[in-house]
Structures are given as C-alpha cells and as structure tokens.
C-alpha cells in the first residue's frame, strides 16, 4: 500500500479520535470562596437550634444566627461558616446581612441521633467566635413514637400551649416529666419506662394520674415511645427542646 492511502487512513483515524475525545463531559463548577468584609466578636443563635426532624430530611426551620460586635450591636458583612459531621448546609458559608443575621438550611444524614452544628466567624485580631447547636434526627421507630406522643402524651407532658391545644401540664400535681427532661429520665431504665407506660404510675409507685396504656397501645408502640424519649434525652443533659416540633 502506498503512502497516500496510509496517510488518508491515518488522518481519518486522527479525526475520528479527536471527535470522540471531544465528547468529554463538562465539569460542574464548585462554589467560590467568599472573603469577609467585616469581623464580629460574638455569634448568637436567633432560631433553629434543637429541632427534631426525620433522617435524611431538612430541618423544618432554617438556622438563623446573628453576628455581634463587642458592643453587642449587629455586625454586617461578617463571614460565618457552618460545619457539622454528616450535615449538609445550603449555603455552607455566608456573609451576615444588614441586621447581622445569617441563615442556612440544614440537611441531616441518614442516621438517627444527635447532630452538632458548629458555626464560626473570624474575630478581629485573630481567633474565632464559635457557637454549637444541637439537632436531632429521628429514625423510623422513633417517628412512630413521635406520632404516638402527639396523639396520647403531648396533652399532659408538654408544658407549652398552642392555639389548637391548651396544655394540661399545670393542672397536674405532681407535675409530669417533659420528654426532654434528660436529668429526670436518663436515670430511669428502658424497662422501667415501658412498665410505667404499660401499667400506669402505680407500677413505679408514682401518681395514678399517669394512666395505664397497656390496653390502648401495642407493645411495639410503647417501645417506639421509649425510643423517641431516648432520642430526645440521650446526649444532651442540659439542652432544652424548642417548642416547635417536626410535622
């Protein structure tokens, strides 16, 4: 074969391979880093801590923080960065607005349990102001427990009243434990909790104001309620739950 044909063949192969190479996929552009315009001294929480949500879901409310300067006035233009193990933030970092506030939407990972949001902002002169927030993700059994709680327990065990539901908490004496009362509930074993729910207050020598639910709830449901209680109390002895619940 002569050079001419070989040349043609070679150039054809070259052209075809160039065409194929050209079909490479595009790369997705990443977020660009933001530069801070100001520096604050303190980070405080405005809202969004201590929320309860399902696994893999977004927190029902955004997390809103405020950056303050050393006089306690809101600081605009400060860079706040959010971190958290197995958490996803949208946005991951932002500049505070004119009211010194930063808002982010948070998605928890696929595992139930406690999550910690760590937010930090650089201080003038070095160092960082840090704030930590706790959030809770409920797995499947705990969600069932939450449902049972909202039908049967919330009336007496929740101190807060809302327009659709007036709390019975203050009408009871002795007062019941709120489900977030880690100090009181953590020492009680799971078996005891199951007993008191199944057989009522007298099973643990408590007041008969706590009725026996053994004939009303299935054993799985009672276990689910205990799982829900543990999700709220485990890992946070001093945390107070906000009044908003996940729907």
């Amino acid at each position: 074969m002569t050079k001419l044909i070989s040349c043609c063949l070679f150039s054809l192969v070259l052209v075809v391979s160039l065409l194929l190479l050209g079909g490479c996929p595009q790369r997705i552009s990443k977020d660009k880093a933001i530069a801070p315009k100001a520096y604050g001294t303190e980070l405080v929480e405005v809202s969004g801590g201590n929320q309860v949500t399902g696994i893999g879901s977004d927190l029902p409310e955004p997390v809103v923080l405020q950056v303050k300067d050393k006089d306690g006035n809101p600081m605009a233009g400060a860079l706040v960065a959010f971190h958290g193990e197995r958490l996803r933030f949208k946005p991951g970092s932002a500049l505070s607005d004119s009211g010194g506030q930063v808002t982010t939407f948070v998605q928890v990972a696929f595992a139930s349990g406690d999550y910690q949001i760590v937010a930090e902002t650089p201080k003038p002169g070095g160092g960082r102001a840090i704030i930590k927030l706790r959030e809770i993700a409920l797995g499947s059994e705990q969600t069932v427990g939450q449902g049972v709680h909202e039908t049967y327990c919330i009336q007496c065990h929740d101190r807060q009243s809302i327009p659709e539901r007036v709390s019975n908490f203050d009408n009871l004496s002795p007062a019941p434990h709120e489900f977030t009362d880690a100090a009181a509930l953590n020492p009680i074993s799971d078996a005891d909790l199951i007993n008191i729910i199944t057989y009522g207050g007298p099973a643990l020598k408590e007041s008969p104001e706590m009725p026996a639910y053994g004939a009303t709830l299935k054993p799985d449901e009672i276990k689910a309620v205990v799982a829900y209680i543990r999700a709220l109390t485990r890992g946070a002895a001093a945390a107070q739950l906000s009044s908003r619940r996940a729907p």
Partner: protein
Amino acid sequence: MNLLNHLRRLGSFFLGDPARRFASASAVLTLSLAIVLSSEFVNDWHSYQRQFLKLVRTRPDAAALERRFERGIHQIWIPEQGIVDRCTTCHLGLKEVALADVREQPFRPHPTIPHSLTEFGCVTCHRGQGAATTVEEAHASTKAWEQPLLPAKYLESSCGQCHLGPLEGTPKLNLGRRLLARYGCARCHSIPQPDGTAVVPADDPPPLRHIAEKTSREWLFAWVKNPQAYAATSTMPNLQLNDQQASDVASFLMAQSTPSGSAPAGDALEPTLLPVTIDASSSGKEEGASLYGSSFCATCHAAQNAAGNVVGGDLGPELTGIGGKVDAEWLRLWLKNPQAYDPRTRMPHYRFDDRQIALLSSYLLSKKGEGLLANVHLPTADAASVARGKNLVVEYGCAACHQINGVNAPQTFAPDLSRIGSKALAQIVFAPQMEKTLPDYISQKIRDPRSFGHGLKMPKYNFTNTQIEALTTALLAQTGRAWNEPKNLVRLAPRRSDYHPGGEGGRLIEDLRCQSCHAINGSGGGMAPDLTTEGSAVQRAWLEEFMRNPGTLRPALIRRMPKFNLTPGEIKTVADYMISAYQSPGFDPHTLDPHALTGDAAVRGKDLFYLKYACQSCHIADYNKDKGYVGPSLTAVGHRRPAVWIYNWLKNPQAVRPGTMMPNMRLSDNEARDLTAFLMTLTARENGAAQ
C-alpha cells in the same frame, strides 16, 4: 549508542526468530490472562467482607459473629416477586442485633421497622439495583440501571406503594396525601388508585356562574394576579398572569355571569327583607363582632386578628379582607340563605333575623384587609378583552376547578400521576441547572413549575419546604406497584361513602349542612364528632337542649358548634331522627341493669374516680376543685350520656370511638359499673356560658 545496542540485543533475544516470537507472545498472553482473571478478586465486595472480618475480630463477641459470617455473595431471593437483592453481600451487619453500636455504613444494622428484611427484600423500599455487587452499580444511576437509591428523606414513599391509606409511622406521607387532596391537585391531574377509586380533591372552589353579583371586576383582577395577597391561607395557586391577561380574565368572568335567582323571591321565615340601616358606629361594630364571635364563624372561617395572626378554621374561605371583596347586598342575601346563591356550598343556613344580618354584614364589610384595590385601575372591558379572557380561561383550565358558564370542565387537562413515582429518567426533561434525579424533578416541578420551559401552564403554589418534601413523598409513592402486587399484599384506603340522610329530618340536616363538620356513616367532615351512633350516645333531652343552645364541652377549642336559631319543631324533628336512626346495636339498654346503679355503687365509684384511677387529671367532675383539661368536662355527664353508653365506653373506649385519646383502663365489670353509677350522679346544669 550503548543503549541502542542493548535494546537491539534485548529485541533479538525476545523477538529474534519466529520461535522466540511465539514464546514471547505466549508468555504475554498467559500473563495477561492471569492478571485479568485474578483481578476478579480485587473488587468491592471482597474488600468489604475483609473489612467486616477485621471489625468483628476487635469485638468481644467475635467468635459468635465470625461463626455466623459466610464468605461469598449473599442474596435475598424471592422468586414470586422477582426480587434478587444482593445488598447483604456488603451490608453484612444488617440483621446483626449485636452490632447495634456500629454507626458507619456498610456495617450498620438495620433500624427496627414493621416488616422483616426478608419479607420484601431491600430494593422494594430503598430502590437502587439489587442484583449488583459493586457500589456504583448498586447505589447510583448508571447506564445499565437508571433508578438510584431513594434518599432517606423520601423513604416513607415506599410504604405508600402498598399502603394506600393513612399509616401510623409515616407522618410525611400522610401529610403529603392530605396536601394533594386539600390543594386540589386531583382536579387537573387524575390520580387513579388500584381499587377503582381516584384521589378525591378536598378543596372547595366556588362556582363563578353568578360572580358579577358577588364582587367587582377590580377585585377579580387583583385576585387572579395574586390570590395570596388577598387571603394568605387561600388554596388557589398563582397562575402567573401578567396585568393584561388578568384584566382579560376578569372581564370575561364578569361577562359570563348570569343572575343567580337568589334575589329575594320569598323566604318562608321572612317574606320581605326590609332594608335596615347599617349601624356604622363603634358600638354597632362591637355588637357585630360579638355576634360574629358567638356565632362561632371562626369554627370554619379564618381571619386575621388584632395581633396579626390568622386564626380560625379552614373549611371556608379566609375572611380577612372580605369587606373589600363582596357586594353589600350580596352579603346580606348570602347570610340569609347561602344555598340560594350556591346550592352546593358547605355553609349552613343559619336562620339569622334581619337585625343580625345587618350587624354581621356591617362587621364583615368593615374588614377591608390590605386595601388591595387601591391602585387597581382597569381599562374598559370590551368584546375583544372578553374574547381573550375566554381563551385564557380555556387555556389555563380554570373550569377544571370552578363552574363557569360557557366553558366545560376539561378532561385529562394535566398528566395522570398514578405512576409518576416510577417514571423513567430517560423520559424526563429536566430544567436547566438542577440535579437529575426523579425526586428532584418532582420537587422542582412543585416548587417552580414553569422553570422547565416556556408555555407551561401549571400554576405556582407557595409551599414551604416541609410541604414540598411531603408532597414529593406522596407522589413518589405512586409507582403503580399496587396494581401488580397480589391482592393480599395491598392495604386499600378507607372507603368514603355518599351517605346523606333522608326524610324530613334528613332535609333539615342537609339544610343545616351538619355533614360539613360531622361524619355520618362514613360521609362528611372530620372536624366534629362522628354522629353515626349519636342516638345511642346521648340522652334525648340533652340533645334537644344542646341544639337549642350549644354549650362548650371542650372549652380549650376554638371550634364550637354554631347556634342555628332553630324552631322547637325543627329541633324535635332532628332529635327524633337522630335518636331513632343513629343507634348502635352494641348499646342496648338492657345490657346494664339500672338497679345496679345504687348510691353505694356511686360512692365506690367516686373513690375509683379520684383515688385509684385519678380521672381528675384529665376530666373535671367538680369544677370547684378539679382542673384536668384534656377530655370533656364531666360535670353534667349524667344528663348527657346514657348509662349504658358510659359503661361501654369505660370498658373499651377504642371500640366505641377508634383513635380516641382516652386510655383503656382495663376496668373490671364491677369497677365500670360503680364508676358509671358515680358519673350518672353528675348532673350539674350547664348555664351555657363558656368556662
């Protein structure tokens, strides 16, 4: 040069003559085959199984765990359902309760769920590719299998594939299904279900046939432009029309309006409607407000209160700006008899007298809201505008929800959603700059329908993120699996009935629209107690008294039964009907011996009430000393409930009213009888005032 010589020598050693070449080629071929065949063992699942063994060996119960472990590919194989799931090859801790403290995948044990893992395999709930044994193919969307793993936040949708009704433990799914009904999605999109029914819309779009009597063209314009500006809680979506289009639609709607015939043609109670001057003084407004309150309009209608919160029910439209919307004469005729304007309205016929109507009208007309119409100046409505408006109304499918003269309800206006949850990725056209997965497609469609291209018609709803997640969950559950599953594996939704009472009593019950709030025999609303067995549940005298003067049974609630100003004859008719027709066979009076309800029994019952069971924690028996605020007050229960009902209720509340909050205290027969005796002694007269 030395190098070249070396290379030449090397070359001739290996490739010098054909025999050498043959040997070299054979060696290379053997080596290649060896390498390729041994690369079999460098794959995902081998390395995960090795990691698992390493993890297991560090634990105290290593021996037992190792004994239970088998090397090789594991699978859950259910040939009847075509399930081959090899997930357990890498997810080795799935069924190991002993590994409960392990948090990382892939060895984390599966959380407790109502089904066993081998009942349905993994892919039924989690999607993904069950037959795969590599991470990428099993989890991600690939050329060979486009359905990736379902994100955990939408996991409840998998329950909804077989469970077609509300389910305990799936709040997101339940919310999503409620939203689908409430926001009228089913009016444009058909969502048939495998039992032959379809998703039924639960909203109440008003008819527009006589709209010109009710409101003005300017208001229609402002409304169509942005419904939520008028009423924040309105379920009508934003059609995203520009000013010109909204003006045309308003012109058309006014033009197609016909007289309703609700003009006074003779009312049985009041032959003529005397024009009563509306008292606009502050005391008149106060009286109007107090009448609004005592009529419990807030039970069904929400309105913005002084603090700026919108409180009230969602059965009827929000009244925050009603004064700026409706015509005064229309309002008076409406309050007189709503069914003359709209025969299918859910609002009851209140039987207000003229003075009450005047007071209520003046109060309502003073609620102007935001002043929506201040800057609305429309060009005159000419025939061209009306024609354009009609085209727009047809194009945007308004008649799918509203009755409009001259425009028929469109059939199959929007795509069928019964299999949206299993839509193939290859058939989806994504909006620019979005994640290309099915759940993202659905939630983006709901969030911003028109971002997918030009000329799309779906209107925009202002859902919160939580609502969008719930709706996406409910729609992802629509995979069509329920059509193909064996019947014993599908749980159908509870059936709705079409029951309406008959006879004279029935006619009154219809006129008063009791079923807007109460369910009877499976048909009606859920806001108020079910009346299916009300005849056995209450004493007749109490029922009549209650209808005359509905008192408060549960003071904490905003929603109360309204007062209808019924005549004694009407009350008797309804009471007759309910007591005789709505009986339950389980409450025959002779199941409880009335002579057993002695005074001694009552004393024992009182001890049981206060000491053993502490009922006062939730119920008030004596309003001087009891404070319990969960269940209804029992101070007059001896008048209200028949003894046999109380007895049956105490024995098993869930049998009488499923889903009630009251626990089953496992009372013995004697205890129940004694408590009944005590409760029957509680006959304090209610004075009707709120506590």
